[in-house]
């Protein structure tokens, strides 16, 4: 996985500024759509640390996203966002630590299957028990912000908030992938056994990446709950995890910023698809076939 250089980051920054200027020229409904895409981008970006970074394809990731979202509900209404956000990251990180400890004992197909099963376990926890308010999902009270946000200002405020957090997450991962830790992860993706033979603590590195990615997914889930004021067990299901993988592949698994491009592209494809046909699964299925069969390097890989 390569990181964009200074030029690439400049383009990404300009794109972020263009989105941040939406309140000046776009309808509230389009700003909500951009918020949705930004949250999807956070989710896919957190998974990219595993998929593109360490070569780990996890289907449990939606579980951590959902835990982050449900933490707002579990803490109860009226809490400060400065409490709910770290709590979401912590809860998701802890769940990722437990899952990763077990699932990372396996490799390849086994890893896929065990992460799928553990992710569904989290799904069942919220789908089958009254813990999370039931199988149909619940409307939640948003956490307290610094100021009270009037209803009309919500699309603007949430768009700017989500863009800020997405940018922060991107910059953090950009730094991280350039560090010794990031290089060690790339080494594991390329050849795990060689890294072990060289004396690296492969198990520890993988678990660290898994927990970190889980905590970041929790942040993404938290922002989804804050933006939509609604949580449902589907957020934790493996179909949601597969969607994040699709965004990564569509945008380009070989590039750190690929998932961001993929998330915005998929959100746009869905929106256009929805205006043409009611068959959403057909649109998504065809998008996957196009991404896997035609766009081998993703959108980010088109330029070479």
């Amino acid at each position, binding site marked *: 996985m390569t990181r964009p250089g200074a030029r690439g980051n400049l383009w990404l920054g300009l794109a972020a500024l263009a989105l941040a200027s939406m309140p000046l020229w776009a309808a509230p409904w389009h700003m909500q759509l951009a918020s949705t895409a930004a949250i999807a981008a956070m989710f896919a970006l957190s998974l990219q640390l595993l*998929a593109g970074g360490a070569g780990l*394809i996890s*289907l449990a990731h939606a579980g951590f996203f959902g835990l982050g979202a449900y933490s707002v509900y579990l803490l109860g209404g009226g809490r400060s966002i400065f409490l709910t956000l770290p709590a979401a990251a912590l809860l998701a990180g802890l769940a990722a630590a437990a899952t990763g400890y*077990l*699932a990372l*004992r*396996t490799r*390849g*197909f*086994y890893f*896929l*299957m*065990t992460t*799928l*099963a*553990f992710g*569904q*376990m989290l799904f*069942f*926890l919220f*789908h*089958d*028990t*009254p813990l999370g308010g039931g199988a149909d999902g619940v409307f939640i009270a948003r956490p307290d912000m610094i100021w009270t946000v009037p209803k009309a200002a919500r699309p603007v405020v949430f768009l700017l908030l989500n863009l800020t957090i997405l940018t922060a997450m991107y910059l953090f991962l950009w730094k991280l992938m350039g560090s010794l830790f990031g290089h060690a992860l790339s080494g594991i993706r390329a050849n795990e056994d060689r890294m072990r033979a060289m004396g690296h603590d492969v198990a520890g590195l993988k678990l660290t990446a898994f927990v970190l990615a889980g905590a970041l997914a929790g942040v993404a889930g938290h922002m989804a709950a804050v933006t939509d004021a609604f949580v449902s067990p589907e957020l934790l299901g*493996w*179909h949601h995890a*597969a969607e994040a*993988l*699709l965004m990564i*592949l569509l945008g380009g*698994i070989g590039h750190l910023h690929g998932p961001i491009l993929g998330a915005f592209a998929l959100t746009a494809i869905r929106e256009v698809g929805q205006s043409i046909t009611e*068959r959403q*699964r*057909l649109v*998504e*299925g*065809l998008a*996957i*076939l196009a*991404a*896997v069969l035609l766009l081998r390097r993703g959108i980010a890989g088109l330029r070479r």
Partner: protein
Amino acid sequence: MEGFLAQLLNGLQYGLLLFLIGSGLTLIFGVMGVINLAHGSLFMIGAYLAYVVATLTGEFWLAPPAAVLGGLAFGALLERGLFRKFREREHLDQVLLTFALILLFEEARAALLDNQFHAVAVPPSLDFSIPVTGGFAYSAYRLAVLAICLAVAAVMFAFVERTRIGASIRAAAENPEMVDLLGLDARSIHTLVFAAGTALAMLAGALAAPLQSVYPGMGDGFLILSFIVVVIGGLGSIAGAFWAALLVGSIDTLGKVYAPQIAGISVCVLMAAVLLWRPNGLFARG
């Protein structure tokens, strides 16, 4: 006590249906090295096939043979047309391609039929209870499902363990490169295994149709449980899949009756315990 016995039989019968799905899954993994997330959809297609056949002809018993024959043909077609090409792909590609298949299968079902729940009646010939002990009687249809699944399992064991083709399937599951070196026809083995796996999953769906509603996405729960069966049993091991399926089926069924809130989780706890104890499954070699 009678209640417990009935639930235990339900659990075994559920486990045997899981075995039909999981054994195909484990062989397809083991022999072809392909991860097929759409395997649960094949189960759903089998159940809908039973619904259509039973509704059109009024005779449920035409459905299981139709599911087997249709499954063999459909599976061979899928393997020749798609999965043969998926083999060289990376795991991520396989996950997404088979995920796309799930979406397209569901969409095809919605286009051809509808998005409703349907009930398939228990065939009248078996719509009665058989007294098992003193005051305890058990559904004849459920006993028939138990018997059919056990018979299929026996035929499968005999085929894989005793015939020449079975021996090459075992060889392929253990060491895929070896099959080519020995001059066996790996391509026909793949087609055979995939077609058989598809037929087994669709047969399971057809048999399960009168036991539960037929509904969109019904394969999803079975997919997850049969993945757990494969993980617990050990990749590529039919015997492992058999015992793991009985274990998972019993725990899930008894859990749903006696502790409904933790039923979904208890099976995963079992899997976690197995992973801690033997990361490659209970029946893995070496």
